[in-house]
């Protein structure tokens, strides 16, 4: 990894203006800042590249890629919900070969750190994907999207079964040349149990959380809005659930690096995840409303740390688990609380 680290220390990665060090490490990998895109919310970077330099991201997390091209589901694929949205894309994508020819090289050329998200319908598919990606230039980390139906278990989602989830992770990390993050679903009774099982299976870290299963019904047509009937709920609406998941898992396994996500829309939201125990965050749905969101959030996060007199991002990671600091303002009205 040390190579990566040094190569990443070039100035244009803006290490820390204002003397604030936003850099973070996940499983030993260095990132100049903790703000990543979220899988499926930034495609493979080209489109966002029209709005900002993707190398300025902590990392670019790509849309989950599968072995073969995928059409995805029929439309409608989305519904707006209060402070959130539902999607049922069905993992549309070009397949790993086109991704390796077209997308990953584009990201590598631009010096973007790339977290490649892979998705499969069997352990074997995940393994093949990891093998194809071995040692490819630009590949920084693997994120394993296990919120996929397991064809070998009557379509049961890997992420909802500790055994199936750990089988995938164990197999992938054996063939991967880079750290492997398991992306967890919040739709489980005991997120800590699932987290433990994938960590025991060798996950270098955890991405939390994927969308919550939801649905909407069009009261005009009196039918489900989505062609796929159910879909994944994302956006600020789910942030409290996502923060809780990160909190619980960091509480149970403080040493395991977490990439936190779920409803991050501004710097304070990102800070909330860091305080809960995440070492970096992904910004997903917010990008749809604001293509510049990741860049804005980096600036807002830097300003938030400055306000609090914090010069090193590491100081806030998991901090909410520590006993309260003495200087916590008393009373609900800070401005006259000093009365």
């Amino acid at each position, binding site marked *: 990894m040390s190579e990566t680290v040094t190569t990443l220390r070039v100035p244009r990665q803006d290490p820390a203006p204002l003397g604030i060090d936003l850099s973070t490490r996940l499983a030993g990998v260095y990132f100049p800042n903790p703000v990543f895109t979220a899988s499926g919310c930034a495609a493979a970077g080209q489109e966002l590249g029209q709005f900002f330099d993707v190398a300025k991201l902590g990392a670019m997390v790509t849309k989950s890629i599968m072995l073969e091209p995928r*059409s*995805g589901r*029929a439309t409608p694929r989305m519904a*707006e919900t209060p402070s959130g*949205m539902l999607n049922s894309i069905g993992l549309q994508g070009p397949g790993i070969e086109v991704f390796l020819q077209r997308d990953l090289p584009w990201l590598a050329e631009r010096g973007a750190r790339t977290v490649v998200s892979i998705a499969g319908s069997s352990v074997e598919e995940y393994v093949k994907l990891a093998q194809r990606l071995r040692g490819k230039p630009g590949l920084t980390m693997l994120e394993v999207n296990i919120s996929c139906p397991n064809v070998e278990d009557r379509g049961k989602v890997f992420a909802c079964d500790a055994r199936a989830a750990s089988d995938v992770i164990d197999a992938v990390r054996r063939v991967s040349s880079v750290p492997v993050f398991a992306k967890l679903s919040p739709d489980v009774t005991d997120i800590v149990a699932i987290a433990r099982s994938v960590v025991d299976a060798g996950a270098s870290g955890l991405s939390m959380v994927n969308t919550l299963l939801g649905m909407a019904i069009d009261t005009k047509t009196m039918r489900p809005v989505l*062609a796929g009937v159910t879909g994944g709920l994302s956006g600020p609406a789910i942030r409290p659930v996502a923060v809780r998941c990160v909190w619980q898992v960091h509480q149970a396994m403080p040493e395991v690096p977490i990439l936190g996500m779920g409803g991050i829309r501004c710097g304070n939201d990102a800070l909330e995840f860091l305080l809960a125990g995440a070492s970096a965050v992904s910004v997903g749905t917010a990008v*749809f*409303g*604001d293509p510049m969101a990741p860049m804005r959030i980096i600036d807002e996060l830097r300003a938030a740390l400055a306000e609090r007199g914090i010069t090193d991002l590491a100081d806030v990671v998991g901090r909410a688990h520590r006993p309260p600091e003495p200087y916590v303002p008393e009373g609900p009205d800070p401005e006259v609380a000093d009365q």
Partner: protein
Amino acid sequence: MPPVQVKGEVVSNKMLGAYHHMTVAAPGIAEQVRPGNFVAVGIGGAESSMLLRRAFSIYTASDRGVYGGTVEFVFAVHGKGTEWLARQRAGDPLDVVGPLGRPFRLPKEPLTATLVGGGYGTAPLFSLAEALRGKGCRVDFVLGAATTDRLFGLLEAKRISSSVAVTTDDGSTGERGRVSDVLPSVIERTRSDIVYACGPMGMLRAVADIAAAHGMPSQVAVEESMACGIGVCMTCVLPVRGEDGVTRMARSCVEGPVFMGDALRWEALGTVPADCLGAPVEVH
């Protein structure tokens, strides 16, 4: 020219029949607009429960004037977001991303073009008409709407075209019926070479069929539900046959909204046709 995100400002927001005519100062966008482009507008501000942008075809854009560049669009109040937009007044801030989408393609030679608009779908056709006439093309309009108050730009159409045919469902203006009822005669009368259309899907399909039946090309601007408008979310797809004959689920926000009428898999809209690249194989 890449799209830009601009903190714009409402210059005016006027009722126009059943529609609202919104003018926004959005410097940086106006300069780049081409006919068929659209803008994506942020709704309700930071504390709004509505996260997603709303897409609107650009009616006209001007890079001159006191406000720097302005962009105009015409919208119908449909749901919560457009209700909010209808309440915005001159001076209110408006976050706009654009220009977005692939514009109408213009012919190299001076052809005869028929432009078909349904309801507010007529809005993007005026800048197209001007561009076509700039290339020496003859332009004829066919405008349709449910009712007269939803017939947009009739006078303007008359001013900038050789002929205008009008239909309304209730017959309150022009012929009672659909644009598809009069389009064939217009095509034949004007010996039209190409048809451009914007409006609801049902209309677009009828127009594309008629053009095909007359052995002529058509370009249609579709309207699919969009979450991002910039190509990253994959919500806005349609089954489209590519040059290579292969059907793919194409993003209407970046590969469209303008498609060739014969490339769209009309019969398969709202589905994933079995012959689509990567179509699901039934697991048994």
